[in-house]
Structure formats: C-alpha cells, structure tokens
C-alpha cells in the first residue's frame, strides 16, 4: 500500500467518522417553565436565536408552570431520542425518576437558570445558572466604589419573602457593603418583585426618611421594583439617579430607558442567554467527550449609563421582556 493510498484511506475514515457529528445537526429538547415573567420570555427567544446561530434543531415545550407537564415533555423528548435535553426546572425536587430515564437512554440533561435538589447531582450533565449572591455583591461593590468615603444611607427593596433569589441577592449585597463602614442599609422591605409594590414601598421609605433627604441610594432586588421606585421618587419631587443613586439587578429593557433619561444609575445583568453556553457544553461533550464542570456560572455584568443604554435598550426590547 502506497503512502498516498494510506493517506486517502485515513482521510475517508476521518470524514466518515466526522460526518454524523457535522451533517446530522444536534436536536435538543427544551422544557421551559412557561410565561412567568418577561425575563423568561426573553430567555426563550434568546435560546431560539442561539440555536439558529449554531444550526441546532431546538424543540421547546412550554410547561405552563407545572412540573407534571415538564416531566411529560422530558419523557416525550426521550421517546424522540433527542441528543440532549435542557430543563428549566419549575421546582427543585421530584426529578429523580424522570432524570434516571434520561440517563438510561444516554441523553445528557442540562439545567438552565435553576438548580435542582442536591440528591440528583449525578443525574445531569451540568447546570448553567447565574450566581445570585454574586449579583448582589456586584451591585454592592458598584455602590461602594461610586459613593467613595461619603456616608450613605441605603434603602433596600427586597424580592418576595422566602424566595431564594431574594435571600441570595440580599446576602451578596450585605457582604459587599459590610467592608465599608460608611454604607448602611437603613430600611429594607419587600416589594414582591413587582412595579406596583416597589412604588408603594418606596413612597413609604421617602416619607419615613425625611421626605427622601436621608436616603443616598436605593438597592432593588430587581429592575421592575426599581422602575416603580423611580416613579415614586419623581412624584415626591426628588431626582432619581442624581439626588438618590439607584442600583438594581436583571437588566430588563425599561431600566435602560430610565438610564437614558438619567433616572437610573446601574443594573447587574441576569443574562437571558443560558442556552448558548449549554449548547457549547453539549456539543463539546458529544464530539470530544469533554465532561463540563457541574456548574457553568453565567457572567453577572454591571451595566451603567456609560455603557450606551440606548443601544442596550434597542437590542433587548425585541426579546419579549
């Protein structure tokens, strides 16, 4: 056998081996929670975009906030023999048996946005989530840096009492500002993650703190509450963004509108792109057998008025927030 023939043969073999991975594009089933928030809608549309970018065939099943629907969807994905299953779990427990079925069918499962009960760690490939403690810390660090050595009384709009995201965002922020003696949270109440409650609570904060004169900054666990709080400040004759600094989390389009108007200062992005890193992890796992780490942390990017809020707003407003 000549060297040339050997070369040709090995090239054909490589081609043959490579073919299934390249030509037959990846099919991924995604069990999405349902329309619980604007962020969720944005996550769905970004997932579709990322799938198109990578030529992945993405099948989305909307569970309408019900675990039984998610379990049904996963079973049907297994029956269709998809290459991977993405799951945004509506609750953290009760997944063991259906994930075992997926494991037996050798279909890798990737968790998006939320983690599940620790007992099931070996049942999924990886979890792509954001670290909400870190998000709070990014917000706290920004405020500490911006305020400098000045004394600063902070009021906090918490998320829903009992929600882990709210507890984590509070913890991260508290830890970050604990290093600075000049920063102090003087009032903290729940705004239930909504605009209406954010506004109502901020109205009472303003009255309780000398018409807002004693408040130097507002920290809200999400942008929606901050949008409400900004309205409350304006109605009280205060200038949000100038008289009172604002920092919140999520990066929904409307906070950038406020930033353009100079009424909001900073937000920490909870990226709706959880599927992108998940597709990459699955592709690497399928092609090269690379086992990803159990947790892929998404970036919690700080966005301020310096980051061209108009451009960010334009890029985000079509996503379904």
């Amino acid at each position, binding site marked *: 056998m000549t060297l040339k023939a050997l070369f040709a043969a090995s090239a054909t073999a490589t081609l043959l081996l490579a073919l299934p991975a390249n030509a037959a594009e990846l099919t991924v089933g995604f069990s999405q929670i349902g329309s619980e928030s604007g962020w969720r809608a944005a996550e769905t549309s970004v997932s579709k975009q990322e799938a198109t970018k990578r030529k992945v065939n993405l099948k989305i099943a909307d569970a309408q906030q019900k675990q039984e629907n998610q379990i049904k969807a996963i079973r049907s994905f297994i029956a269709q023999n998809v290459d991977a299953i993405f799951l945004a779990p509506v609750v953290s427990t009760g997944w063991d048996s259906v994930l075992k079925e997926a494991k037996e069918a050798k279909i890798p499962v990737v968790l998006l946005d939320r983690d599940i009960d620790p007992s099931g760690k070996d049942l999924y490939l990886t979890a792509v989530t954001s670290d909400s403690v870190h998000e709070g810390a990014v917000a706290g660090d920004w405020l500490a840096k911006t305020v400098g050595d000045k004394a600063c009384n902070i009021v906090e709009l918490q998320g829903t009492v009992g929600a882990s995201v709210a507890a984590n965002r509070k913890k991260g922020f508290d830890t970050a500002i604990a290093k600075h003696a000049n920063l102090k949270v003087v*009032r903290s109440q729940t705004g239930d993650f909504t*605009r*209406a409650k954010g506004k109502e609570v901020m109205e009472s904060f303003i009255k309780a703190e000398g018409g807002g004169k004693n408040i130097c900054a507002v920290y809200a666990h999400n942008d929606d509450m901050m949008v409400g709080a900004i309205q409350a400040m304006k109605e009280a004759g205060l200038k949000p963004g100038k008289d009172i600094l604002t920092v919140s989390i999520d990066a929904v389009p409307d906070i950038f509108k406020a930033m353009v108007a100079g009424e909001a200062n900073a937000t920490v992005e909870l990226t709706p792109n959880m599927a992108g890193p998940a597709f990459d992890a699955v592709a690497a796992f399928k092609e090269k057998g690379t086992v990803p780490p159990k947790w892929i942390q998404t970036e919690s990017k700080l966005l301020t008025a310096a980051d061209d809020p108009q451009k960010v707003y334009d890029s985000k407003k079509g996503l379904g927030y």
Partner: protein
Amino acid sequence: MTELLPRRGLAQILALIVILAVDRVVSPQFFDLRLQDGRLFGSLIDVLNRGTPVALLSLGMVLVIATRGIDLSVGAVMAICGAIAASLADSHGLPVVLAAALGAGLICGLWNGFLVAVLGMQPIVATLILMVAGRGIAQLITEGRIVTFSSPDLVWLGNGAILGVPVPIAIALGMLILTGAVVRGSALGLLIEATGGNARASELAGVGTRAMILAVYVWCGVCAALAGVIAAADIMGADANNAGLWLELDAILAVVIGGTSLFGGRFSLVLAVLGALIIQTMNTGILLSGYPPEFNLLVKAVVVLAVLLLQSPKLSGFAGIMVRLRRTKP
C-alpha cells in the same frame, strides 16, 4: 349610652382611629401634608391612594356579597382590563381606552352573573373559573410582558390631581357616591338585601332576583375594571402576572370588616370602603414601621383578628355582661 352612639359602624370607626394612632406613633410625620407638583403629598394621601383599588373592588363586592354571592374573579378582571387599557393607550384616545376596558369588565361581570343567576352555579365555583382563566387571558393580551405606555391622559388617571386631590381618590369617592345614590336612592338596595336574605321568598314576593344577581355581578365587573385601569395608570404599565393578584381576598376582607355578612342580606357601602381603608392604613403603617418584611402578614393577621373580634356579637355581649357585673358588684 349605647342609644346615643350609632351601633353600626362604631367598631370600624374605632378600629380606624386606633390604627391611625398607632401609625402616628411609628411614624411621627404620618399626618404631615404638603403640596408637591400641585398634588397633595403625605402618608395619609398614600393610604387613600393605595387603598383605591381595594376600595373600588369592595364597592362591587359588597353588593355581590349582599345577594349571598361572592366574586373571586375581580383580581383577574383587574389584570384583563389593565392589559386592555395599556395596549390601547398609545394608539387611541382616553374615551376609547376607558370604553374598551370598562366594557371588558362589564362582559366579565355578565359572564359571572350568567353562570350564577341563569345557570344557577355556586358563586364561589362560577367566579373561580374566571379567576383562573382571566389571568391567562390577561397574559395573552400582554404576551407575558409588562406593556408600558406613555399616553399622558391615561397616566393622569393614575398620577394626576384634581384641586390637589389625586385622581384615583377622586374616582373612588365619585364611585362611592354614584353607587350609594343608585342603590340607596331607590329601592334597589332593599331588593338586593331581600335577594340575599331569602331569595325564594323575595322571588314569590315579586322581586326579580335573577336580574338583581346579574346586575350586581356586572357592577362588580365594572368596579374591578376601573380598579384595573387605575392600577395600570399608576405604574404606567400593565403587569398581567401581578396586577390585582390576591386583591379579591382583600376586597372580601374589606366587606367583612365593614360588617356585611357573607350570608347576604344587610350591607353597607360606606363601611365596606372604610374596611378597605382600615386594611390600607395598616399596610402603610407596616411599611413605615421599619419592621422586617417577614412580620408583614403576621401583623396584618393579628390586626384583622382584633377588628373582627370587636364586631363579634358574642364578644360584645360578653363585654356587656362584664360591665353589668362590675356595676352590680360593689
């Protein structure tokens, strides 16, 4: 002594005064008022302003409850009508927006009334249907997003002022006077009470009970629609997931605090609205107090229990006995 004071309403007025006094203690500037951009500004105004949606809901709810019914769908109707108003606000004038939103509320009320009055369904089940489906309808209208608008006319409904009085407060007051004039200025109120007291006997006596029931659900739907429009105007956006969420329970609570029995019959519009204000005075007080939010619901529960105990006939009978005993003892 008891003859000099109006027996009805005394407990509610007393409760409101006590809660206001407690608010004054936790927040010394509670009664401070000033003008801000031509609008009255202060905690007291917050109480009235934030209490408006529940006060409006309770105006409709009290009539429904007087007929021995209940309407669980008002929160969802708020979400639907707020969503409709917000979606139309930037492309249509205020009259069209209001007509569409209030019309939708009217249709929702007709639906509930039809199920209860014509098909004879149990009110709690009949209105549960719209409570569940309604939020879904609202989400379909907004496509799960928060629909924002900038139409100054609609925003005025939430944030404007008439002679310094915030518009929502003026609307609620207007609705109270209108509803009161209609049901108490005519025999309508009496007929509603008769329907709730004993539907069969009223029917035999010639009261159109079916029409009465239909009418109160329609009015309840319209009141909920108005509350929904105001809630949307307030935050310049319609949040289908959260607008009016659980407010049906606050509205029922307001009616009950107002002394109207869930078994129907005698009702009081003013006391139902007073009930809504008691709830909101307490809510605002909790927010001003600076207690950790974990206590919010606990404090609310204790205060509601106390207000209801004040009204309990058994308990006031017991108190009367105690007073008599003390008088006779020495």
